[in-house]
């Protein structure tokens, strides 16, 4: 996917891109700006805009402001907004796909978001082993913002790690791995190729 890059702050081609290429994007047109989503969001206080306002910004074509917003990164995926929305806008799914778009388009704000750095470590484990190795994902994430930060985070969570080891809930030794890792990689690569193809078609 590559959304058209606007020459102006308000560029409706971005709105059209979201309607056509983001999962559930068409329903965004039906948003009536009631605010039930932002009002029921448990993490709304940590969001710069919240979903209601973000959706208005999409419709106004504010690509840059939307894809650099922390609203797409701080969503905890609780689906509270989705079940309450009177217009059945699949809000969480839209936020998810917007975060992928922000990464793909290389926004610096997106790349340094905790969620994006965590997702990078996570996707590495999911595709290299076919499974999430909680221990390795966490370690890679901790060190994704530098050695110093990694050690600091590791220390802060030492007691938790020890407790998990003691209760045998931290897997030690070689990562669990699916047998068909090669096969999984081929499927994922093909899917990425198809996705890129659709992006160009749009």
């Amino acid at each position, binding site marked *: 996917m590559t959304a058209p890059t606007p020459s102006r702050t308000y560029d409706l081609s971005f709105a059209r891109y979201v309607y056509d290429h983001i999962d559930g994007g068409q329903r965004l047109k039906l948003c009536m700006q009631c605010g039930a989503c932002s009002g029921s969001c*448990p993490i709304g206080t940590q969001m710069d805009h919240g979903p209601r306002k973000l959706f208005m910004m999409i419709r106004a074509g504010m690509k840059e402001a939307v894809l650099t917003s922390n609203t797409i990164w701080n969503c905890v995926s609780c689906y509270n907004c989705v079940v309450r929305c009177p217009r059945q806008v699949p809000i969480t799914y839209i936020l998810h796909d917007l975060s*992928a778009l922000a990464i793909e388009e290389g926004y610096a704000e997106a790349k340094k978001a905790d969620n994006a750095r965590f997702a990078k470590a996570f996707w590495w484990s999911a595709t290299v082993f076919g499974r999430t190795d909680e221990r390795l994902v966490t370690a890679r994430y901790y060190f994704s913002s530098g050695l110093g930060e990694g050690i600091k985070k590791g220390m802060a969570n030492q007691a938790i790690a020890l407790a998990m080891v003691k209760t045998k809930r931290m897997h030690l030794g070689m990562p669990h791995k699916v047998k068909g890792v090669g096969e999984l990689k081929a499927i994922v690569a*093909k*899917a990425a190729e198809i996705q890129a193809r659709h992006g160009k078609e749009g």
Partner: protein
Amino acid sequence: MTRTLTYYPGCSSQASALHLDRSLRAILPVLGVELRDIEDWNCCGASVGHIEGGHLANAALSARNLANARAQGPEDVITPCAACYLNTHYVNESLRADAGLKADLNEALGAVGKSYDGSLHVRHVCEMLATDVGLEAIKAKVTKPLAGLKVAGYVGCQTVRPFADTERGNHFDRYDDPSFLDNFSRACGAEAVPFKRKTACCGGSISVMSPDKTLHLIKEILEEAKAAGADVISTPCPLCQTNVEMYQPMINQKFGTDFAIPVVFYSQLMAVAFGLDPIKDAALGMNIIKAPALAGR
């Protein structure tokens, strides 16, 4: 009657939620449910896979699991993990509703000679227990009622949202005020204390990566459970169990509280109530905060 279902344990079953997996594999056969794991199952992408992988590549993870499950047979796929359920169910439903997506995912699967026709049903273990097995059958297996045990039923968000209250979720319960978990506690002979935050969010993966943003959410859950006099919090969700349990010392440090409330899976409660082995079957040794009120029975 014994039924065999296809089982998707999910990645947490091999680490942080080993005690969920172990206790389920102990109680389900007692309730007449035999499990056959999805052959060589892989990660579902949880709630972050789409960010780095993109929408379709992330969906492809679930497509491979579904293709493998279908190759094993037409039986329903059940999973105990909120994220596994949400992702697998969502991809399955989307692929049925959207011929374009079905074609795309089959093209991806076709790269290794696999395919998936969309014919399976993906269900949450709790929904299966509530609708197929039923409370009476659960009650009938209780040999050691958990009399006097006060349980706060913490469902978490994704087990019931967005699907529970819809046709797609078999209408198994309400998405805002579900009753299945309290019913499970009561079936085991325990007391379900009133608990309003049953579907409040624990912060999910944000709690894992940036607890500073979400510890206050977990604190509110603990506060209400404590005020309700709960001996234990019961939950069906692997991430809820881990977050609400492991962060208690950090919350105590940050907010000056003194929480030490055991957080257990409903399946651990059932294992004890069914008279199974508290360590081998209920896996009570795997809870960081021990639950003597439960283990000592």
